[in-house]
């Protein structure tokens, strides 16, 4: 920045330059080389009178200092004459500073037409006339700088200045458009809102303040904006008393109602806060930007409707955060007892549902499949997580229908990830139905449970939306039921059932139940559901084996009280479908209707175990002891695998030469033709040299190729980068190798070396719980980080928000819109970070940790270390 801002060769017009701000602008520009037309009418602050004296004084002052200036005494309303002075004297105009102004302050009550008109004539029309006259000259020469003078009195309002304020703000609008029209011609237009002591403000301010508000504090920004160096146009600046600042428009995110919907004044009222919420505002700088949300709304198409309780547009398709839960035999037993199983402890069949060491093997009661989903929903409700657009309280919600389907029988223990989405919303007139689909996936990411929960929302319908399917399904036939079972529900049944997760006090607390309008605590609808499901399976599943269960669907019709006698009537419609209905005997009221259970025709196959590497040393050794795996087995397996899966080679198109030592052997893995075998190949893409032992370990997944390579145990010749193509073989099941080994040893295939995969406990919940505790102990941690971190943990998925920006620091499950930084990584990686095995930077560089948003906070994740 060696060169000074200068105006050599430039011609500037400054209106109202006889005194105050205008004079100061003129002197500064002249001192930097500009030739200045000093315009001043020489009138009073109120715009009366006329004199050449003030302008002459300034011209003389400039000339005495060795620069050029010429005086002009015309009114700005005669802008042509002012510009003509410049052209006549120097033949050009580069800068116009519209500064001239007068005041006619009056309260609005006392304002006359004359007061109003003269203010507009001088400020608005005057600025127009001068600028209009200079415009063709500037656009023609491809250079110009124009400055307008607005006022805080217009931007914010000032008592007694309705005329002045509105005229002044009109200049901002003028400049906004003019800056657009001038940009292509290098004519730049800016506006200042100065606060300076001048004739116009004199008398309003005490002398000390008056002195600190010298015009000389305003002129520097005027000079810069009018300089060649400046490339800003369309700016508004508030300046004065040594303060220089930019000003812009701000607009709230606002509230958008989808089109095609009546927007009522009540809608405006209920969204008033959002309409006025500036916490995350936009700064609009063009008409196109201004139109953005409108265009978006038009493109979004017509509404699906809604009202104050339900906004179908927002809610439909919205997803809950992933919910991870685990259960084991204890949870299954507690549930079974909760729905009245094993009342007779000597009943062998019933005992299977609650006793983990049962001789015939424990069985999960299939209706337990409803638990992960309902617990997910209840968990979210507890945390206050609800999908956008669903704005009703739990008091309006009734459990309407429930559907569950199992892909295969429930295992005795599992960690499930449940994903919930708002699937359908129906307008039933008085009320509305909200259908939430919940799918639960097992540790391998395979779907296990599909379910749909239909909630009836009282009083939330009637927006004229679709009614949805209305056909009555699962209607019992007119004949007498094939089977009828009676169950006396024990008085304490709800107290037992709630231990499976639904802790709603309505089912336990007599006072609370009364408050809800019930004479005493009622039984959970899903408890009745469990009773009925269990009874249907007892009577219709082949050999009473609950594993035949495929699906269940019910509609909840009325309440059941503990102590009631539940009558379940069943009709066998086919071998695979049983329609049923539940009544309360005492009141003869139907409590579950339109219900059916479907059975599998054949027992579904238990899930195939995923091919796993021998990660468990003990089991691995046991397998090895049976048949030792050699490189020959591996190559034979690869050959077999490649021939069965030609696509693998088709994609890889790479030939490897394998040179093993101890004992020495030579192999070719040809991922071009799709074969593997002993011997040398003419044209390998890469040659791998390593010990037999290392190769077998590598194939078992016990050794890390990167480690072998970097410690020199694996040598690669040829195209090093082609080595990653060997990943193509990673899908080959290790069982295949064992088969080949067994075949070579002359025996049958040994058992798979590994039993069920050791499901690692997800770390995220523990880690973040520990973090929460640490934050309580050390709230100062937030100051070190100063950011809102959104964590997306995968495998199993979970989402966490760690707010280390605000005090007190906060931690919650779920998502936020206000994240500073988003960090995505695997649960396992989180473990490595926590144990200090690796660093955030290393994970990031390796692509195992993704960072979006501000990178800086990612440098400060040390607090994760040593949490567990």
């Amino acid at each position: 920045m060696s060169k000074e801002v200068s105006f050599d060769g430039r011609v500037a017009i400054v209106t109202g330059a006889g005194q105050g701000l205008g004079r100061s602008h003129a002197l500064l520009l002249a001192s930097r080389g500009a030739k200045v037309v000093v315009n001043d009418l020489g009138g009073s602050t109120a715009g009366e009178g006329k004199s050449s004296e003030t302008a002459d004084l300034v011209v003389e002052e400039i000339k005495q200092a060795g620069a050029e200036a010429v005086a002009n005494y015309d009114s700005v309303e005669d802008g042509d004459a002012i510009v003509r002075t410049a052209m006549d004297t120097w033949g050009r105009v580069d800068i116009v500073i519209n500064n001239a102004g007068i005041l006619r302050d009056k309260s609005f009550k006392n304002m006359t037409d004359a007061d109003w008109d003269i203010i507009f004539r001088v400020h608005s029309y005057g600025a127009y006339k001068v600028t209009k006259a200079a415009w063709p000259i500037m656009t023609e020469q491809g250079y110009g700088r124009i400055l307008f003078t607005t006022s805080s009195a217009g931007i914010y309002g000032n008592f007694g200045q309705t005329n002045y304020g509105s005229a002044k703000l009109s200049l901002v609008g003028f400049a906004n458009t003019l800056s657009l029209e001038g940009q292509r011609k290098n004519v730049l237009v800016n506006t200042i809102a100065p606060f300076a002591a001048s004739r116009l403000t004199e008398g309003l301010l005490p002398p000390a303040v008056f002195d600190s508000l010298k015009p000389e504090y305003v002129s520097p920004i005027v000079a810069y904006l009018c300089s060649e160096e400046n490339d800003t146009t369309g700016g508004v600046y508030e300046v004065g008393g040594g303060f220089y600042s930019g000003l812009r428009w701000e607009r709230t995110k606002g509230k958008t109602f989808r089109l095609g919907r009546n927007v009522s004044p009540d809608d405006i009222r209920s969204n008033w806060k959002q309409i006025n919420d500036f916490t995350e505002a936009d700064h609009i700088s063009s008409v196109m930007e201004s139109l953005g949300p409108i265009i978006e709304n038009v493109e979004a198409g017509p509404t699906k409707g809604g009202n104050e309780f339900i906004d179908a547009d927002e809610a439909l398709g919205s997803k809950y955060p992933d919910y991870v839960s685990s259960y084991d035999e204890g949870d299954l037993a507690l549930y079974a007892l909760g729905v009245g199983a094993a009342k007779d402890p000597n009943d062998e069949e019933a005992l299977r549902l609650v006793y983990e060491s049962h001789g015939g093997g424990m069985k999960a009661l299939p209706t337990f499949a409803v638990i992960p989903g309902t617990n997910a929903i209840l968990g979210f409700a507890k945390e206050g997580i609800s999908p956008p657009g669903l704005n009703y309280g739990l008091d309006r919600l009734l459990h309407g229908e429930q559907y569950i389907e199992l892909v295969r029988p429930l295992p005795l223990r599992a960690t499930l990830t449940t994903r919930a989405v708002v699937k359908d919303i129906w307008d039933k007139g008085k009320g509305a139905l909200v259908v939430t689909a919940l799918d639960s996936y097992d540790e391998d990411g395979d779907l296990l449970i599909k379910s749909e929960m239909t909630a009836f929302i009282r009083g939330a319908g009637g927006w004229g939306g679709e009614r949805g399917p209305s056909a009555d399904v699962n209607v019992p036939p007119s004949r007498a039921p094939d089977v009828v079972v009676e169950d006396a529900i024990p008085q304490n049944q709800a107290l037992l059932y709630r231990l499976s997760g639904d802790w709603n006090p309505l089912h336990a607390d007599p006072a609370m139940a009364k408050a809800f309008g019930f004479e005493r605590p009622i039984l959970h609808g899903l408890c009745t559901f469990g009773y009925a499901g269990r009874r249907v399976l007892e009577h219709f599943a082949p050999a009473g084996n609950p594993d035949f269960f495929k699906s269940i669907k019910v509609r909840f019709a009325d309440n059941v009280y503990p102590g009631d006698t539940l009558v379940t009537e069943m009709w066998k419609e086919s071998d695979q479908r049983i329609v049923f209905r539940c009544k309360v005997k005492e009141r003869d009221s139907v409590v579950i209707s339109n219900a059916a259970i479907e059975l599998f025709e054949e027992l579904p196959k238990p899930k195939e175990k995923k091919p796993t590497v021998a990660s468990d040393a003990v089991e691995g050794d046991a397998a090895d002891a049976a048949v030792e795996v050699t490189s020959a087995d591996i190559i034979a397996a690869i050959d077999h695998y490649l021939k069965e899966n030609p696509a693998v080679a088709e994609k890889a198109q790479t030939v490897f030469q394998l040179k093993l030592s101890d004992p020495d052997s030579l192999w070719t893995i040809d991922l071009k033709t799709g074969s593997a075998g002993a011997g040398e190949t003419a044209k390998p893409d890469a040659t791998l040299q390593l010990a037999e032992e290392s190769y077998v370990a590598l194939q078992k997944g016990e050794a890390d190729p990167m480690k072998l390579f970097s410690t020199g145990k694996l040598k690669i010749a040829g195209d090093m980068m082609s080595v990653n193509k060997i990943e193509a073989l990673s899908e080959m099941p290790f069982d295949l190798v064992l088969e080949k080994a067994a075949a070579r040893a002359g025996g049958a295939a040994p058992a798979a070396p590994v039993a069920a995969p050791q499901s690692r406990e997800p770390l995220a919940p523990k880690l973040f719980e520990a973090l929460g505790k640490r934050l309580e102990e050390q709230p100062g941690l937030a100051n070190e980080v100063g950011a809102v971190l959104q964590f997306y943990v995968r495998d199993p998925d979970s989402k966490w928000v760690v707010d280390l920006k605000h005090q007190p620091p906060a931690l919650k499950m779920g998502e936020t819109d206000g994240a500073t930084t988003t960090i995505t990584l695997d649960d396992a990686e989180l473990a490595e970070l926590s144990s200090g095995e690796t660093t955030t930077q290393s994970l990031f560089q390796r692509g195992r940790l993704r960072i979006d948003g501000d990178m800086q906070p990612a440098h400060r994740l040390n607090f994760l270390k040593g949490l567990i």
Partner: protein
Amino acid sequence: MGRKVNVIGVGMVKFAKPGQSEDYNVMAAKAIKAALADGSVEYGDVEQAVAGYVFGDSTCGQRAVYDVGLTGIPVYNVNNNCSTGSSALMLAKQMVEGGIVECALAVGFEQRQKGALGSAWNDRPNPLELHVKMMNDAQGFTSAPPAAQMFGGAGREYRWKYGAKRETFAKVNVKARQHAAKNPYALFRDPLSVEEILASPEVFDPLTRYQCCPPTCGAAAAIVCSDDFAKKKGISNPVYIAGQTMRTDYGTSFSDSMIKMVGFDMAKNAAQAVYEESGVGPEDVDVVELHDCFTTNEILTYEALGLCGEGEAEKFIEDGDNTYGGKFVTNPSGGLLSKGHPLGATGLAQCTELVWHLRGQAEDRQVEGARVALQHNLGLGGGAVVTMNRCDGGMSGREENRNRRRPEAGAGPPSGAAPGHPWEAARRHHRELDRHRLPENHDRRGGAARRAFEGRSAAPFSEPGRLARWGDRAPGR
């Protein structure tokens, strides 16, 4: 110091996707003929030729020039990975510089197979194995294309170090496409938005597919000569090479930084040497063609060339300093990203583009008044060639260039003057003013006034007399 070397003829063919191009010798011959015509040079005047290409058997260079003439001159084949084209140019330039020849030809071409870069020789050490070893230590291998892993990894390191947003990398290609839209020689001329670029398939974070230059075939050529030779051809103000340096890897390439592994220090040191040799610094440069094989490398190169400070590229882009109206126009051709990257031809295509700008022949995309042009061409393995081209002729010289006969064979953009970018007009205007500006040491008018203003600005209003006078003059109150 050797003799001044001029670039009097340039030419290129429009690049094409693999499988859609003509054969290498056909493309090369067209480029050579275009360059000869452009410089009004007969092939018989060419005393030696250097031919650059990466993929192909030995002596493809001879095969290519034989289609233009069989004059028995020496032909050298050059192979320097992605910096091959400018390596050929540098050898030809050195022949003239050292007084060995009066006129030499540099030609570069590439006929590629489909797919990302790979190795053709698998029974011997890979020349990039030191680089790969370094990368493995820093970030491991993945199945992504190797070059993307290297430049993408450098991008990750850059993000970590300076906190650059993913969008910033995408913006490089937004700009490349905007520039390419005006270049009839560019292969990809449709505009792309940041969103589209980020939504394209991820290749190696932060690189998405639209942030990787496409495999391309093509050819470009340049004729270099001495002042005497140019004069004989009646060219008085040719574009000349004011400085040129090649640098290969330093130890820092194999230490712990992906940014350095992909050639940051090579480029930085080469640029420094060129600035010293040519006597012009980055601040004097008007237009730049640089090696944007991946968006990440364009960002690294801004900093290596000193176009902005280290870690400042994001702001540099935000400020629009890499395009028309900003401090520099980088890759007005659309760069490797949009124009394509035929390895052997790239360096000479960059040279061609810059010569067009210096002569005022770049049509719609002309950087107005360009007088100083910087070229950066990088190959992994490695080599960075940085070149400073200038044209001093002033308006008259450039006018002469502008009026020269337009080369045939599709070389040179279609004519038909379109108005330049509005900012360019302003810039030109300022340059005119510059020219008429008084020397720095001249005591400018207003100097005394300035001193007077500053000298008493402390207290104009504290003089009681003035206040009183103003007070008198407020009859309205």
